[in-house]
C-alpha cells in the first residue's frame, strides 16, 4: 500500500497543473482510483455512504464474465485473450481521448464494454477489426451521447452491429468450431463422443453456428449447446458458463432479475408457440446463439435499460419476443442483438409510460 502511494506521489507532479502531462490528468486519476480507495469525504447529510460504488458495480460484471471468458479461451484458444487486450487498448484510447478533451474522469463502465465486446465476436475476427469495432462502439454508442450514464444503446452492441454491417463477409468466415485447445481436454466428460454424431453431419459446413445449421436442417444436441462445444461468438457458446456468471450477477443484485426473467420468459413462450408446442425446440433455442449472453449481460446494462421496475419487465418482454420472431421468421438466423437494440430504443418511452402511471398513483394517494 505504502509503496503504491509512494510511486503515485512520485508521478503526481507530472500530471499536476504545471506538469508535462497535465492534459492526461484523467489517466492518472483513473489509475489512482483503481489502485487506492479514495479519501473523498462527504460534505452534506447523509454523512456516511454505502460502500457500494460504480467501480465495484462494474467489477462484479467483469467477475461474472470470467466463466464465459474462461470457456472462450478454453474452446477457441489464447487468441480470445489477444482480442480482449486489443479491445481494451483501442476502446480505452477512445475513452481516454474523450475524458481528456472533456476534462472529465474516465468512467468504469468502459471496462465492461471492453470485455463484453470481444466475447460477442466470432473467435477468428481479425484483430484490427476488433479495434475498429470497439472504437466505433465506444465513440458512437457512448461518447457521442455524453458518456457513461447518458448513452441510449449498449456500446458493445453498437460496435458489433457496425462490424456486421460493414464487414459481413469477413465476419461470416470467422466462425471456428469449438474444440478444447488451450489446455487440452480437461472437461470431465467425453465431449468428443457426444459431438461425434453431429460432427459428421456438420462436416460439410464445419464451422457453421448451430443456428445456421438448424436453418439447414441439422440440429446440434442440447448438451453441446449447454457446455459450449459448438461454433459461435467467442463468449456466447457455453450456456453453462454464462448462466453461472449470470446467476451470480442476479444474486448480488447488479443485474435486474425482472429484465432477465422477462427476456427469457417471453422468448420461451414465443418460441414455444412458433414451434408448435415443442419443448425440445424451445429449450434448444434458449441455449443456442446469443440469447444467454444477451439476456444475462447485455439487456441488463442498467444505463440502456429502463429505470422503472415495470418498465424492465416490459423491456425484457420486448427483447424476448422480438429475438424469437427475428430468429424464426426473418432472413436473419440470429436476432438477439437487434432485439436488444430495439429494447434500448423502447426503454425511454417505457420509462415515460410507467413513470406517468406511478405519478398518477402518487396523486391519488395525495
Amino acid at each position, binding site marked *: 500500500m505504502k509503496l503504491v502511494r509512494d510511486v503515485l506521489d512520485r508521478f503526481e507532479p507530472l500530471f499536476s497543473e504545471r506538469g508535462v502531462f497535465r492534459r492526461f490528468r484523467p489517466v492518472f486519476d483513473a489509475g489512482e482510483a*483503481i489502485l487506492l480507495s479514495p479519501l*473523498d*469525504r462527504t460534505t452534506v447529510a447523509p454523512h456516511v455512504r454505502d460502500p457500494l460504488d460504480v467501480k465495484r458495480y462494474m467489477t462484479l460484471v467483469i467477475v461474472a464474465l470470467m466463466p464465459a471468458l474462461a470457456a472462450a479461451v478454453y474452446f477457441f484458444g489464447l487468441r480470445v485473450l489477444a482480442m480482449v487486450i486489443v479491445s481494451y487498448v483501442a476502446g480505452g484510447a477512445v475513452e481516454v481521448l474523450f475524458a481528456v478533451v472533456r476534462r472529465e474522469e474516465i468512467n468504469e463502465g468502459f471496462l465492461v464494454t471492453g470485455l463484453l465486446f470481444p466475447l460477442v465476436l466470432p473467435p477468428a475476427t481479425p484483430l484490427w477489426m476488433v479495434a475498429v469495432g470497439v472504437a466505433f462502439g465506444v465513440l458512437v454508442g457512448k461518447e457521442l451521447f455524453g458518456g457513461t450514464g447518458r448513452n441510449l444503446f449498449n456500446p458493445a452492441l453498437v460496435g458489433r452491429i457496425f462490424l456486421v454491417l460493414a464487414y459481413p463477409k469477413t465476419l461470416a468466415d470467422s466462425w471456428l468450431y469449438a474444440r478444447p485447445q488451450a489446455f487440452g481436454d480437461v472437461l470431465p466428460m467425453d465431449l468428443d463422443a457426444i459431438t461425434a454424431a453431429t460432427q459428421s453431419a456438420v462436416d460439410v459446413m464445419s464451422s457453421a453456428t448451430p443456428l445456421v445449421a438448424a436453418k439447414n436442417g441439422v440440429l446440434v444436441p442440447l448438451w453441446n449447446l449447454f457446455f459450449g462445444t459448438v461454433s459461435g461468438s467467442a463468449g456466447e457458446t457455453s450456456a453453462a458458463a454464462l448462466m453461472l456468471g449470470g446467476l451470480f450477477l442476479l444474486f448480488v443484485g447488479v443485474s435486474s432479475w425482472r429484465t432477465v426473467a422477462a427476456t427469457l420468459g417471453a422468448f420461451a413462450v414465443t418460441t414455444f408457440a412458433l414451434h408448435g408446442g415443442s419443448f425440445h425446440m424451445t429449450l434448444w433455442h434458449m441455449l443456442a446463439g446469443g440469447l444467454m449472453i444477451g439476456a444475462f449481460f447485455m439487456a441488463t446494462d442498467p444505463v440502456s435499460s429502463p429505470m422503472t421496475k415495470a418498465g424492465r419487465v416490459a423491456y425484457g418482454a420486448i427483447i424476448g419476443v422480438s429475438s424469437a420472431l427475428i430468429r424464426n421468421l426473418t432472413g436473419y438466423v440470429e436476432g438477439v442483438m437487434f432485439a436488444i437494440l430495439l429494447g434500448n430504443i423502447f426503454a425511454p418511452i417505457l420509462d415515460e409510460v410507467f*413513470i406517468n402511471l406511478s405519478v398518477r398513483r402518487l396523486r391519488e394517494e395525495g
Partner: protein
Amino acid sequence: MRGGFNVPAAGLPPAGVEEPPATDRLLVPLTSRRFTFTDVRVDDGQSVSAGQVLAVDPDRYDVPLLAPASGTARLSEAEGHVVLVGLGAGSAAGEALLRGGPDDRGSSATTSRLVELGVWQFLSDARTGEVVDPDAAPAGIIATALRLEPFLAGGEAQLRGALDRLARGLTSLAALAPDAPLFVVVPDCDDPLASELRETAVALKGAHVVVVPLRFPFDEPAHIARVAGLPSGLDDVVWALRAEGVLAVDAALNEGRPATERVVSVAGPAVGEPVHVRAPLGYPVEGLLHGRLCRQPARVVNGGLLTGETLAPGQLGLDCECAGLTVLAEPTRQTLVSFARPGVSRRSYSRTFVGTLRTDMAMRYRAALSGELRPCISCGQCTDVCPAGILPGVIHKHLYADRIEEAQRLRVDLCIGCGLCSFVCPSKIDLRRQLLAAAGELREEARTIRAEQAAAEEAARLAEESEPEASGPAGETGGSTTGAVVEGAR
C-alpha cells in the same frame, strides 16, 4: 409501507440516561437549525434566573430562548452565545414566578404558554419541518414515541418510567386542539417498554395509534402525516413532536416547568463509550465529548447520521434543538484495490459484499464518500429505498437538466429528506440535497404566487370600490409578476 432501511452502524448508545459532570459555565448558542435568536433581552453582566428569557427570535413568532440556570450573563465572551457563569447564584424568585401551575385560560393562551416556556422548539410542522405558527389551528397532531435515525436519543432513552407523564402530556396536547386528530406513533416490537407504550397509547381517549415497524424512516412525522392522510395544503399545519416534546408539554402545562434541558445522545462510530446524557441548554460541547472520542480526526454532527448538520465551528454549547451529537472519523487511510475485495467486514444495502450475509454485524462507518462521484447509471436503488415512493434518480436527471417543473410533476414535494437515496447511490450523487432544495424552491414559489394573487385581488377589490374601470390592469400586473417569479425560480 415501502422502502426504508436501517443503516447497520456501530456505536449505538445503551438505553440508560446519564447525568453529565458538573460545569461552571453554560454557553447557550443564539442560533440553532431553525432559529436565530437575534433579539437579545439581557445585558452583559446582568444576573438572570432560571427560565428567564435570554433572547427571542422575532422572525419566528417571538419564540424565546430561556436561561437554563440562574447566573450572570456574559454577552461578549463567546460570539453568538449567551454565556452564563456563577451558576446557581441568582435569585430563585424567577423560578417561583414560572411555577404557576396549570392555568385556566383558553386554548390559545395555553399555546402561548408553550411558547413562553420554551416548548415550542420541540414542535415542527410535520410536512415541512418548519416552525409552527402558534396561532394557527392544527389539522392534526403527530406524536412520535420513537426515533429511528441511528444514534439519536429515541423513546427507549426517554420514556423509561415516564409513560404516565407521556400520557398526561398527550392528553394536554389533545386539549390544546380538540378538533385536531391526535396520532400516536408506537413501535412494532417485542420489547416490554414498547408493549407498555402501546397499551398506554391505546388507553388514551380519542387518540389514533399508528404502529410502525422499526425501520428508518417510518417514524418520521412527514411519513406518518401521509400515511394518516392528513391534509397537505399550503395553509394546513400539522403539529409534530417526539417523545421529549410530549414530556416537555407535560412539564410545562401540568407543572409549569420551562423546557431548558434536553436528552441528547453522544454516540457514533468514533465514540468509544456512547451514552445518552440529560444536559441543560448551553452545556459545553467539549465537556460532552471529553474523553469519549476514540478516533481522530473526527467530525461532530449536530443531529443524526443521515440528516444532521456538521456542528458549526463556532458552536460551543448545546443548542435548543439538538437531539444528539454524532461523531464520525474522517477517512485517512487508503486501501489497495478495496473495490475488488470480497468485503467480509462491509455491510451494504446491496448484496455486493460478503459482509451482507452476516446480518448480526454492524459497520464502523467513516465520513467517507466511499467512491467517486459519477453520472447516474440508473441502477434503481434510490427508487427501491425511497419511503415516499417517488423516483429520486429520475428527479435528479430532470433537475440536472434544469427542468424543475418536471420535478414538480414527479412529486418532489413528497420527499421527506430521510437521506437514504444519497446513502445508497453508487454514483455518490447528493440526491437528498438536490431534492430538498427543489422542494423548498417550489414551496416558496407557491407561497409567493399566492401572496401576489392575494395582493392583486386586494388591489383589484380596492380599485373596484373607488373606480370600477381600474380593476383590469391591476389583475394583469399580478399575472405577469407571477410569470416572472416562475422564470426566476429556475
